[in-house]
């Protein structure tokens, strides 16, 4: 028992510094959702149904621009595709868990829980602490996300439009974009997608974002291929 609590705590403590960056993100989501006219209940429950910050912001952003719903769905899912990659890296470490642990563990996959766990798993670790460490980080993040989005929703109605807080949405994406550019090829992927997005912004149904993202992925992929 002591070992479980210890691992749970270690996970939560390791993710704590990252949580400081999650709080403003959650606040901005809550404010943006309220300003987009999304009801408080749906805005709040989205944090547990979808539980993915960037996708939640995209949904709110596209709803505010009256985008077509199939486009919102596909765009949000493409934003979340990266979590398949996290799952692929975590899968060998989760391989011995029972089905229910895997189901709940999968629901809790986030950029942050993935990042701290995969770094910790590089050092040798027994099966049980591995699991509790992951849940310590993942559940801490879930709780902070729920609390900060709830606060943002409550604040949303009180913030005047003249503050232009909707600008915080692209700024948040910028803060996530910069660390995702790790080398020449990811830089080319970002540039390709950025240029495409500038050119396709008038595309109907807001299809420009998804089109540009796919163009960027292909640019990165073929840039990498051309190096070999």
């Amino acid at each position, binding site marked *: 028992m002591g070992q479980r609590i210890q691992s749970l705590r270690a996970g939560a403590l390791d993710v704590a510094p990252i949580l400081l*960056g999650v709080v403003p993100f959650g606040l901005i989501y809550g404010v943006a959702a309220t300003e987009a*006219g999304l009801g408080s209940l749906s805005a709040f429950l989205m944090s547990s149904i979808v539980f993915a910050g960037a996708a939640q912001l995209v949904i709110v952003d596209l709803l505010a621009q009256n985008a077509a719903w199939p486009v919102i769905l596909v765009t949000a899912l493409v*934003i979340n595709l990266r979590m398949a990659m996290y799952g692929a890296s*975590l899968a060998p470490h989760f*391989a011995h868990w029972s089905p229910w642990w895997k189901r709940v563990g999968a629901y809790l996959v986030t950029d942050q829980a993935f990042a701290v766990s995969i770094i910790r798993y590089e050092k040798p670790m027994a099966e049980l602490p591995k699991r509790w460490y992951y849940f310590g980080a993942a559940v801490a993040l879930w709780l902070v996300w729920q609390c900060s989005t709830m606060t943002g929703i409550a604040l949303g109605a009180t913030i005047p439009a003249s503050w232009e807080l909707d600008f915080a949405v692209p700024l948040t994406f910028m803060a996530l974009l910069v660390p995702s550019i790790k080398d020449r090829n990811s830089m080319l*992927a970002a540039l390709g997608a950025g240029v495409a997005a500038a050119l396709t912004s008038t595309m109907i149904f807001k299809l420009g974002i998804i089109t540009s993202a796919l163009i960027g992925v292909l640019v*990165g*992929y073929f840039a990498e291929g051309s190096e070999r």
Partner: protein
Amino acid sequence: MIASQSTGVWLLLGAVGVGTYLIRYSFIGILGRAEVSERVQRLLRYVPPAALAALVVPGLLFRGDNPGLTIHNYRLLAGLLAATVAWKTRSILATIATGMSALWLLQWLF
């Protein structure tokens, strides 16, 4: 606002929720320890920079009454400054604070 058509919003949220869960669960639950093809892994690696850039650019250039790619686009100027801060500090909080302050300052000055 279309968001008030609440049944549609719930359907949308449900669909994104199910889809997102399946993405998360895919490799952990279904494929288990099966190897992910190298090509798929390489493609997935470029999703974050590409998707995020596709979101940032229109947000700086074309939202609301923004004039696009000119020096009079305050959101673009504030965004470029924020990008520098993001690159130097890697801090979400510092990036947002810089961008918002720069926007407010530019609007107050001009």
